[in-house]
């Protein structure tokens, strides 16, 4: 039985945990940069000068991936106010935008028999909310409101920006690790490091650096997924506060749990964390490799608010 916690406490706790996990990611990044410097170049500052532009380039590229591309990949179309269920969708988004004080996002609809929704856009002034036709058919207005509140919480909490930057860092770590690994493979580890130091010390450091290089991509990926899950919980609790009705989203999540469709989902995989439930993998049970927390746990927490 989940202890009864105020929504505000859920929100604060989720924000604290995000900081912890992001801190971990930053440490990992710094460690890899140092390893890179130590093993490959022999000078940490040059290595930093090498690593930071890579990281920024990755982030800039993924960040500027136009919203249009994400929408095209999902085959999403602007919501049509002449179709009643889409007009009702627009109405619910208007309501949540008033409740949250956020500017009204563009509303899109994705043809799909699954119940799902995602939000994207680089900041609240340029945001988009997209809901599947399956969701419009299968959810009632209370549940739809819950889903929309969750998605707009992602916008409000700048999760899109956070996840884009995080994946940029993950990419940079992976790239640097790859370079290091192959360079060592083909001989060339341990160049100028100044003579006169004890051999054992050097060897230990090299081993540590090698381990770091092999494990860093895995750890950074796991950390990224941990951040993703944490932000999902935060969006759940922020959304519950926005709509003042956690039960709406809880009911919608239950319908998603029982939602079974045979069709293959279409869209770009990078957007997976922005959906309300990962459309590419049926992840009802949790694991360290999920972008989303287990549905059961999310429902439990919502009902304890």
């Amino acid at each position, binding site marked *: 039985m989940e202890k009864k916690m105020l929504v505000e406490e859920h929100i604060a706790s989720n924000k604290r945990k995000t900081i912890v996990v992001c801190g971990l990611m930053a440490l990992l990044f710094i460690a890899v940069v140092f390893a890179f410097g130590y093993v490959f170049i022999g000078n940490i500052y040059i290595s930093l000068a090498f690593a930071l532009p890579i990281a920024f380039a990755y982030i800039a590229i993924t960040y500027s991936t136009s919203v249009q591309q994400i929408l095209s990949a999902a085959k999403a179309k602007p919501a049509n106010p002449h179709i*009643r269920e889409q007009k009702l969708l627009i109405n619910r988004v208007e309501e949540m935008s008033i409740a949250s*004080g956020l500017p009204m996002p563009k509303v899109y609809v994705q043809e799909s028999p699954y119940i799902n929704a995602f939000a994207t856009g680089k900041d609240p002034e340029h945001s988009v909310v997209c809901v599947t036709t399956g969701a419009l058919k299968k959810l009632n207005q209370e549940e739809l409101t819950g889903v929309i509140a969750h998605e707009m919480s992602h916008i409000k909490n700048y999760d899109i920006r956070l996840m884009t930057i995080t994946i940029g860092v993950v990419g940079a770590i992976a790239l640097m690790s790859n370079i290091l690994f192959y360079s060592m493979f083909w001989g060339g580890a341990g160049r100028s490091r100044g003579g006169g130091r004890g051999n054992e010390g050097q060897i230990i450091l090299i081993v540590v650096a090698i381990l770091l290089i092999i494990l860093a991509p895995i750890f950074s990926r796991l950390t990224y997924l941990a951040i993703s899950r944490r932000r999902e919980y935060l969006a759940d609790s922020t959304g519950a506060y926005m709509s*003042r009705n956690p039960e709406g989203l809880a009911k919608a999540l239950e319908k998603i749990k029982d939602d079974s469709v045979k069709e293959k989902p279409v869209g770009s995989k990078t957007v997976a964390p922005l959906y309300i439930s990962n459309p590419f993998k049926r992840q009802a049970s949790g694991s360290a490799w999920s972008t989303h927390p287990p549905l059961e746990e999310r429902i439990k927490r919502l009902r304890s608010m």
Partner: protein
Amino acid sequence: MDLLLIGLIILVILIIVILIAIFFGYYNKIIRFENRIDNSWAQIDVQLKRRAELIPNLMETVKGYMKHEKEVLENVTKARSALMNAKSPQENIDADNMLTGALKSLFAVAENYPDLKANQNFLNLQDELTNTENKIAYARQHFNDSVLVYNNTVETIPGKWFAGMMNKKTREMLQIPDADREVPKVKF
């Protein structure tokens, strides 16, 4: 000796700069939060006006179908005039409640008229009014949320000191009586 003096002067300047930055920060924060309150208040008004505009249209559409539901229809008309004639804030709130309740009853009773429910005009109006009532509720909610954030800043330290300097006081939240939430009783 000179170095010490220079060091001290730099330190003092640094502290002054930091204090000014903090002052700017809180001043701007308080102004922003206050603007948010005013904005959400205006938003409530916009939605209330919208609702008032939709009602005559609704009455025209339903009166042909619901000829025998005199009481329900009159309740809406009565509530609407009460709202337009309200003078004090309390009268306003009471009339507003009355109108929300009267509309709820009307829509509940309309469930018994399949012809009416098939009328596209009626459906549109029902969707619009539901939308508007929801927006009124959320606008009030956002108003109260904005007041909470503002009050928190203005009542805690150090915001309290800046608020005093700017002569800003705490604001009051809207009290929405629970009459609003009653399920209407429908006689068959």
